[in-house]
């Protein structure tokens, strides 16, 4: 098991010392995290790493998962899509089912705690049934809710307004709510299977298995095949680059099964890549963390040409691997990539092609950019910073009304 002290080699012992001091000042408090799945997806990934670390800090931290049937998850998937701006139709029957499943879970839970962090909309309604079982209720929203569907947001707002605080990943996701809203950036775990160091042999083994030759520089985009990740735009950019410079493109990711436009986009990607031997499309399962890690480490340039983005953790992962990254100017990518410094921001396939060529012809610049990117992630986007933010958050929620708290 990874120990908190293992991170000291990466972030410095003083950072680990800070976590211990914050936890000590907080005293013996109980925390419960609640989400809707134990594995799969970004929230489960971060909780599976963060909960043991919080326990190592001496905090009584639990992780509960709500259970639901297929209909329940159909409703919450519709919530998710609606919060991201898609138009969905939710009948009163569906909303009732969402509430009933939460009630059933509430009857099953026996915990009492000081702080409960409820992740995303699926378990949000628990507060209606369980308010008295925790001193402080915090809603942690991981979704891009910058332009939510109004009907669904109205329904959720009625629930979320009962919480003592909410937490968003980007300032543009904040809403008009009657309680304090906080900003906690997502993070990556440098020791997870997706980010840990790999040997050249491990990387080569994955490439051999996936049938990728390293005979030309590799341009990589890792993302779901959905319209907001603009995979077709990446292929257009690649074709522009190929007129001048030999290279190959790897598009790796899963199908966007919960995106109504997913199948159409995937068909468009296949069509756009048709007849081009230097484009490889890889459909990977959601748990292909080792493969993604190896692909990122094998790539010469990593692209994330999103037109709409939550935070963009694939950018963070690529930066951590010391790669030069070209990203679409959207959401959290803007926060991470600074031109000529930690990466390049682009606004079009032409811009993406230009920056790919720029970096292919300037390997020294690409190397320096990768180093700066890794250092930027080390300082701001590793899980230790996330843990520190959680500790700071609960300290603040424990002292409502104070803007500066001296412990």
């Amino acid at each position, binding site marked *: 098991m990874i120990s908190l002290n293992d991170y000291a080699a990466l972030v410095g012992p*003083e*950072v680990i*010392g*800070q976590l211990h*001091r*914050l936890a000590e*000042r907080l005293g013996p408090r109980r925390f419960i995290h609640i989400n809707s799945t134990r594995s799969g997806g970004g929230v489960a990934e971060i909780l599976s790493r963060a909960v043991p670390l919080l326990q190592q800090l001496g905090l009584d931290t639990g992780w509960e998962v709500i259970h639901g049937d297929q209909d329940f998850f159909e409703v919450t998937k519709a919530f998710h899509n609606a919060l991201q701006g898609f138009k969905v139709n939710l009948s009163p029957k569906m909303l009732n089912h969402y509430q009933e499943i939460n009630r059933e879970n509430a009857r099953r839970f026996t915990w009492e705690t000081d702080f409960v962090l409820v992740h995303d909309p699926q378990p949000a309604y628990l507060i209606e049934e369980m308010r008295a079982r925790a001193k402080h209720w915090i809603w942690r929203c991981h979704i891009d809710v910058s332009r939510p569907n109004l009907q669904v947001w109205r329904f959720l707002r009625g629930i979320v307004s009962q919480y003592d605080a909410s937490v*968003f990943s*980007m*300032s*543009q*996701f*904040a*809403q*008009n*709510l009657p309680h*304090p*809203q*906080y*900003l*906690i*950036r997502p993070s990556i775990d440098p020791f997870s299977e997706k980010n840990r160091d790999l040997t050249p042999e491990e990387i080569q083994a994955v490439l051999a298995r996936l049938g990728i030759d390293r005979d030309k520089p590799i341009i990589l985009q890792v993302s779901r095949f959905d319209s907001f990740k603009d995979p077709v735009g990446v292929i257009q950019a690649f074709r522009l680059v190929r007129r001048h410079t030999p290279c190959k493109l790897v598009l790796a990711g899963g199908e966007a099964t919960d995106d109504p436009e997913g199948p159409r986009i995937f068909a468009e990607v296949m069509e756009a890549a048709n007849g081009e031997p230097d484009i490889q499309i890889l459909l990977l399962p959601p748990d292909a963390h080792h493969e993604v890690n190896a692909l990122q480490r094998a790539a010469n340039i990593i692209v994330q040409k999103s037109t709409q983005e939550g935070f963009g953790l694939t950018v963070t992962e690529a930066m951590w691997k010391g790669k030069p990254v070209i990203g679409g*100017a*959207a*959401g959290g990518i*803007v*926060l991470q990539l*600074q031109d000529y*410094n*930690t990466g390049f921001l682009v*606004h079009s396939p032409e811009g993406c092609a230009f920056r790919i060529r720029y970096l292919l012809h300037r390997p020294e610049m690409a190397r320096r950019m990768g180093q*700066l990117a890794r*250092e*930027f992630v080390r*300082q*701001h*986007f590793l899980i230790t910073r996330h843990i*520190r*933010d959680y*500790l*700071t*958050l609960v*300290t*603040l929620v424990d002292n409502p009304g*104070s*803007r*500066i*708290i*001296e*412990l």
Partner: protein
Amino acid sequence: MPKILDHAAENSFWFHECFLMPMPIGRKAVNLRELLEAIRYLDESVLYYHLIQSRLAPGPAAVEYPNDLAYWAANALQDSKLAEKLSSFDPFEYENMGEVRQAVGDILEEYLWDLPYIPWARSGFELHFCHASTVVIRSEISAQTLEELCLALGKVGLDSLYYHFFEARWRLGVRKADDFSFWIENNFDLPDLVRAIRDLDIYFYSLKEIRETLVGVINQYVGEICDQPE
């Protein structure tokens, strides 16, 4: 000078750690006129965040602009002239945040007055307003002599530098005083060093540069007692 180096302060200097939690307020500016309006009506804590506290938040690695507003003008509005004006603005020249708000508002209003158009942020670069809460704890690092102080400066996090230089100005109620010069003034007879620290252009520097500069000034006034931090 060696006598000063041996001198132990009556009260140790305890370094504090400062954890900033940004709090988005759900409002944004997409153009310069909206920024001006926001500065006039939003709480002063929002301006305080974007002018001062945001240097503790994750931001681009090497930015020449000392505050969010100047950076936004340069990067989002792509208006270098306005960025120059906002980067030359120093909030520590004013007595309180009310005056700071008035001064920033005046800069923006005068700039807009002469423009035939409203500068707009490019898509994805809107300014989303925040304020912040902070948690402060005492670290385990303290200093009783100048040498210990100088050595400790290389060990503490940048959040400590922020706390003792920036937050101190409002806490001590003396615009030009920071915790370091305050402690030296009260424990050592080194008025030139105190003045040199208070003359540092801290608003201009990044936190990392402030650390290097402070160590440099101490070495300059009391002899080379510690190495420059890496």
